[in-house]
Each structure stands twice: as structure tokens, then as C-alpha cells.
């Protein structure tokens, strides 16, 4: 065990001791039915007055055995299931799975399909961040941003709906490329959304970024150092807010990301405010990627020639993408049949949630909800 791991609290018993309480201490169960746990997360808090002495996340209330289901479905049959993991970013889930199976097959999607995938995945990133922004602000008591965020998210969902008929669990991609051609006004819709969106982000920022109360509630709250973040396997905006520049889109480019210019926003202090700023900046970058991509979607086929029945050769593959919440990885083992032998998902939320215990130490009850919001978890993905 290295020093970083020790600092992050590995090796200590994580369950909190509820048998011996101090004079002023109480145990508070937050969730699984609570307005701010974003689903069915349960947090056991040991409180001294308003201050958190210890905390324990209890998960599993939304476990559906997604990974086990995969072992009894053929490769294409399992694709819709991955949409139900991070259900607010279904497109990204699908992208990761399809690319992983393609890698296993040794196939590659045609350029046109890859560009369309990139556009949809970036739109999905914006949609996911918008939902995060709204709910996070709501947790901190700002009632209004969520409705503005939902208004813009609706535009994205409309594009999804026009493209594939579904809004939330889209199943937008197929192994080997795309099922559907883009619809007639696809480029125009994406472009119009992206062009309008810049000033919409400014609107959100007007409400929050320089608001004294917002800064007071988020600055210095839930600090996660870069070392801890790396030791705990934290990825995505949470990691980048701690000052580590790691983005799978840059490090191991997939889809069509190597074609486009974009920056990876990072911040230094790793607190809730920085995580907020990183995600806001990411929305701006995602918008730029969409604008670049939509201008030159290559012509050509949208589906690779991979045959009707998918029988990958025996072997294993790990493929990861940068989902809206962090590194989303698929580890797939094939035994040469039409069904995977094992599918293991590396969900970003699950790993990021592990950092909660570290962030919440010494925080107050009100900070707890701010921290949960800033990690941006989806329990469907944590529990699978």
C-alpha cells in the first residue's frame, strides 16, 4: 500500500461505528429516499451537531445485475441494456459498448458514422452536464437554474428524438456504425443549438459564478487533492478540477476526436466550486467540438461490413471513453460464441463516489448535499 492510498483511507474499515456515540452525536440516515441523494443512494452520517464526523455510503438499491444479463444476451442484444446504466447519458454508454465490441471484432466504424457518433456524444455530454448543473444548484438552494438547464436540454433531446426516435434511452448506435442515416435538417439543428447555447451558458453563469452565496457554499467545500483523486481512481471533471489533466478523448482518442481542436479544462484546488467551473468550461468545449464536427461530416457508408451474426474471436478487450462523468470502460471477454463470456463495466460514478468519504470529512450537513451534487453520480450506473 503506497502513501497515496493510505492517505485516501484505504485499508481502514469503512463502515461507521454506530454503537458508541459521543454526547452530542447523532446518526442521520440520508436516503435512500431523500431529495438530494440523486436517486437511491443512502448515506449514513455521524453528526456532531451539524458537523459530519464520519460518513458511509451504502449503495445497491438500484442493482439490476446488468453485467450478469450480458452473459445471456448476444452482443447486439445487450446494447440497449447499457443505456440503462447512466440513464442521463445513454448515448455515451452506447458509444463505449459499441466501440469495445468493434475492437473485439477487429472492425472499425466508417468515418461518417464516427463523426456522427462524436456529435451525438458531445451533445449528450452537454445534456448530462445541464442536468447536473440544474440539480446541483437546486441542492444548494438556487431554485431557478434547473428550469433554464432543462429548457436547453430539451433541445438536445429533441435532436435525439428526431434522429433515433428516443429521447432518454436512445440506443443510438449499433455495433459497426449506425443504424440510421442522419435526418435532413440534422446539421442545421445541431448548428442552431450550438450557436444559441453560448449565451445560454452565460446566463447560468450570471446566476451563479460570481454570486457571493454560491461562492461561499462551494469554495473550499469538499476538497479533493490530486494525489487522493488518483489513488481513489477518480476520473472525469472531478479529477480535472483537482488539477490532473487526464481526458480519454485526448489521451487515447476514439470516435473522431483526433480530428478536432479542443481544450481540456482543468482547475487547481479540487473543491466544489472548481468542479462547477470545470463542467461549465466543458460545456463550452463540447459546443465547439459539435460546431467543428457538424461542418464537415464525411459522406459514405454508415455501417461497417461485419456480418449478420456477431461471433468475436476468443479473447478479451478493454475499451474506455470519456463519458460526461468520467472514464467509462468496458472489459469484455469473448469465448467465441455469440454471447459474451463476461462483461465488466467500469462506471465513472462508482469510482467517483468513493471519494465522497474523503471529501465529506469535517463538512456540515449542508455541504454533504453540495458534495454529492458536485460528484455528479447516477445511481443506475453505480449499482448497475
Amino acid at each position, binding site marked *: 500500500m503506497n502513501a497515496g492510498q493510505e492517505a485516501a483511507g484505504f485499508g481502514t474499515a469503512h463502515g461507521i461505528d454506530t454503537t458508541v456515540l459521543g454526547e452530542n452525536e447523532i446518526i442521520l440516515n440520508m436516503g435512500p429516499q431523500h431529495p438530494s441523494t440523486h436517486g437511491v443512494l443512502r448515506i449514513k452520517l455521524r453528526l456532531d451537531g451539524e458537523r459530519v464526523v464520519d460518513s458511509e455510503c451504502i449503495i445497491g438499491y438500484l442493482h439490476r445485475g446488468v453485467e450478469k444479463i450480458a452473459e445471456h444476451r448476444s452482443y447486439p442484444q445487450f446494447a440497449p441494456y447499457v443505456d440503462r446504466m447512466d440513464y442521463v447519458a445513454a448515448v455515451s454508454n452506447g458509444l463505449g459498448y459499441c466501440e469495445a465490441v468493434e475492437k473485439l471484432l477487429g472492425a472499425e466504424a466508417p468515418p461518417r458514422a464516427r463523426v456522427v457518433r462524436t456529435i451525438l456524444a458531445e451533445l449528450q455530454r452537454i445534456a448530462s452536464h445541464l442536468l447536473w448543473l440544474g440539480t446541483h444548484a437546486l441542492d444548494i438552494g438556487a431554485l*431557478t437554474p434547473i428550469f433554464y438547464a432543462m429548457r436547453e436540454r430539451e433541445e438536445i433531446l429533441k435532436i435525439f428524438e428526431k434522429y433515433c426516435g428516443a429521447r432518454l434511452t436512445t440506443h443510438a448506435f449499433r455495433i459497426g456504425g449506425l443504424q440510421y442515416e442522419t435526418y435532413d435538417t440534422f446539421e442545421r439543428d445541431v448548428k442552431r443549438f450550438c450557436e444559441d447555447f453560448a449565451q445560454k451558458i452565460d446566463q447560468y453563469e450570471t446566476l451563479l459564478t460570481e454570486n457571493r452565496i454560491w461562492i461561499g457554499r462551494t469554495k473550499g467545500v469538499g476538497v479533493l487533492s490530486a494525489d487522493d483523486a488518483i489513488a481513489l481512481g477518480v476520473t472525469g471533471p472531478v479529477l480535472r478540477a483537482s488539477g490532473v489533466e487526464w481526458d480519454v478523448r485526448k489521451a487515447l482518442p476514439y470516435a473522431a476526436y483526433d480530428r478536432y481542436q479542443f481544450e481540456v479544462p482543468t482547475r487547481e484546488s479540487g473543491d466544489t466550486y472548481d468542479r462547477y467551473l470545470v463542467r461549465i468550461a466543458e460545456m463550452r468545449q463540447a459546443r465547439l467540438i459539435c460546431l467543428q464536427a457538424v461542418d464537415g461530416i464525411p459522406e459514405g457508408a454508415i455501417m461497417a461490413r461485419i456480418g449478420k451474426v456477431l461471433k468475436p474471436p476468443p479473447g478479451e478487450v478493454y475499451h474506455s471513453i470519456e463519458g460526461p462523468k468520467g472514464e467509462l470502460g468496458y472489459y469484455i471477454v469473448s469465448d467465441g460464441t455469440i454471447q459474451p463470456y463476461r462483461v465488466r463495466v467500469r462506471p465513472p460514478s462508482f469510482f467517483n463516489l468513493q471519494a465522497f468519504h474523503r471529501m465529506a470529512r469535517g463538512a456540515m450537513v449542508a455541504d454533504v448535499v453540495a458534495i454529492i451534487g458536485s460528484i455528479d453520480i447516477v445511481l443506475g450506473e453505480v449499482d448497475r
Partner: protein
Amino acid sequence: MHAFLQSVSAIAMPVLCAVVIVLVLPLLAGYIVLVERKVMAHMQARLGPMRVGPHGLLQPIADALKLVLKEDVIPMNADRMIFWFAPVISVTVALVAYSALPIGPAFQIADLNVGLLFIVAVSSLGIYGIVLGGWSSNSHYSLLGAMRSAAQLVSYEVAGGLALVSVLLLAGSLSMKEIVQAQLDQGVWFVFYVPFGFFIYLVASIAETNRAPFDLPEADSEIVAGYMTEYSGFRWALYFLAEYANVIIVAGVATTLFFGGWLRPLTRYRDHFPGTSVELLDVVPTLAMIALAVYCFRLAPEQPVRVQKRVMAAAGVKCLLFAAILLASLFGSDAVRQGVHGAFWFLVKVGAYIYCFMWFRFSFPRYRFDQLMRLSWQFLIPLALVNVIGVGVAIVLREKWDWNPFLSLVPTTLATLGFAAWLTAEESDFSDEAEGSAAGDAGEAAVNGGGE
């Protein structure tokens, strides 16, 4: 005989007023909630209640019916007696406070010579309802809410009280009527004399009524619903009523003390219509009501259902009725005219104040507990003290050396402003030092102090 009639009317009028207040207040609270929901909706790019009645006009009645018919749940381990009694304390105390509030010169239950003190004292008793309710629910969320509420109310009572003192010094009386009279005599609303007093009272009154951004006792995203978590149905409605009654009270106090109570804006402008005793500006309320009625009539045909068309038209007719009353009172005796128009202006000002409450609620995130305590003890209370001392100095300047009242208060305002700037600078120095830890020592001290 005459004396007998007089004593009967001396009793009958207050009783009448009290009955009207008790009857009208729940309805008023319901409609404030509706307005709040509509204002919130329009600020958030949506429509708000649209189903029950045209533009949701009957929504409060439907809500009230629902609450009364709902099952009354008492948690198994709750302290039943206290659980039952706590909301009653809250609502009773809130209603009692109305007895000294003058809604226009004629409409007041009792003109106490300690009116302001009475209102402040009685309405601060409402905390008993909250603490007892939170404690008796036997739930941790309720308990946390109650504790937060207790600390918060006590702290902001001090700041708010000191802000009121600055007005008392200027008015020289605790009677609500005489405070308004003083503003009439001095020819200016006190908000222009002591803007900082008003500012402090505004912040303190939001905190005292547990409204966002100080709604920690019922912060829904943190402690579910705070002290009301275990309450449902009618008991919950009582708490709700108490909360909105308190909002109206603080708005009424602010109106009376800082905005000239029932006085019309531009009270000194007294031009009459040629040949009559009707003042030009006294027609404004009537015109406003007529405009509102016209608006309702124009909306009526656009409503989707016949019933809604009728309700909208009825709302228009009601506005016309008010317009007629306002107009007729112009030709009545002085007392009648002042009574009716005074009530109108008073309610308009109260409404504007409550609108600000709503506006803040939808604009700001929520404070954290230690920040809330720090704001009160380290910012508002010192500021209020400086303000009070400054007003005292100004009064001495005015009385001893005959300074112009406005001029004498300019140094006060400047001094308070400078002090506020200094405090803010200190505050940001402090947060720079404390960066990295969740809350600094002072915040901690305030939290501990609040908990005791």
C-alpha cells in the same frame, strides 16, 4: 345613551376587525402562495398553475380542501400532546401579532402605545411552535430543523430589533399609528432617512420568517422539510399559515416603519380637481383597479373552458367592485376616505415587500448554517449598532444645532456605509485565511454559540 353607544362601538369595531382578519388571512395566505408560484413560474420560463380555474385562480381553494381532507398522520413515537399543540402555538401567536398592526388608519384592532414592541415580542414567541414541533416529531430531520430555526430566529431578532430602534429614535414613539403620523409630520418616509436600517431589517425579516436564502430550517434539499417533516394535512397547513402570516406581519412592520404605512406616495401633493374636494392622486387606486378589471375582461374570452371564462369575468367584476368602493369613498367623510384608501396603499406596499421576498427566493442559493450565523453576528449586528449610534448623533445635531434633518443623517449613512465596506473587506480577508478548511474559527464559534 350616547356614551353607551360609544362603548359598544369601542368593543364592536375591534371584534369586527379581529373576525375579518381571522377569516381573510387564510385566504390571503393561499393567494400569496398562488402569486408566489406564478411569479416563480414566470421567472423560470414556465406557466405555473393553470388547471384549477383560469390561470390557477382557484388553486388555493383546491389546495386548502386537499389539506383539510388529508389523513392526519402522527408518527408512532411522537410526543402526541406536544405534536398536536405545537402548530397551534405557531398559528395563534402569528394571529395575535396582527392585533397591533394598523392596516390603514381605521382598521386596527388595538392601538397599543407599545404596539411595535408587542408585535416583535409576540411574533418571536412563534419559535416555541417550531422548536416543540421539531422536537416532538421524534425525527432527526425535524430536530435539526428546529435547532437551526431556534438559533436563526434568536440571532436575527437582535439584528432586526436594532434596525427598528433607529426608526424609533426618529419617530419617538412605539405606537404604530404615531410612527406613521411622525412620517406624515416630518414629510418623508423613514426609509430615506435610514436606508441602512431598512436594509438590515429587510435581511433580518427574511431570516426571521425562514424564507430563502435563509430557509435553512426547512431546507428541502438538506433536511427534507425541517421541523415540518413529520407533519401532514391540516397540522401542516397550520404551520404553513403561520409562516405566511409572519411574512405579512414583517412586511406590515416594514411598511409602517419605513414606507409610511398607509400614507399615499407624494402625500404633500394636494392639488384638487377643480370645484371638488377630491385630490388628483386619490384617483390612482380607482384607475388601477379599473385597469386590472379591463385586463381580466380581455383575458376572459381567451380561456379554454366556459367555467374558466366565467371565473375570469367574475374576477374582473370583483376588481370593478373594488374600484367602485375606492371611488365612492372619495366622496364620503374624511375618515371613510382615509380608511379605505389607507388600507389600499398599505396593502400595495405590503405586496411590494412580499414580492421582493419572492424575487430573492428565486434568485439566490441558500446560506450554510455557519455563514448565516456569521452574517448576523459579525455583519448585521455591528452594522445595526453603528447605525443606531449614528441616528442618535444625527438627532442631537438636529435638535441642538438645528441642522436640516436630511443633512444630519447624511454622515450617519456614510459612516454606516463605510463601516459596511470595512466589514466586507475584513470578511474577505478572513475567508482568504480560512481557505482550505470548510469553515473558520469564528464561524465555528458562532455555530457553537447558536447551539447553546
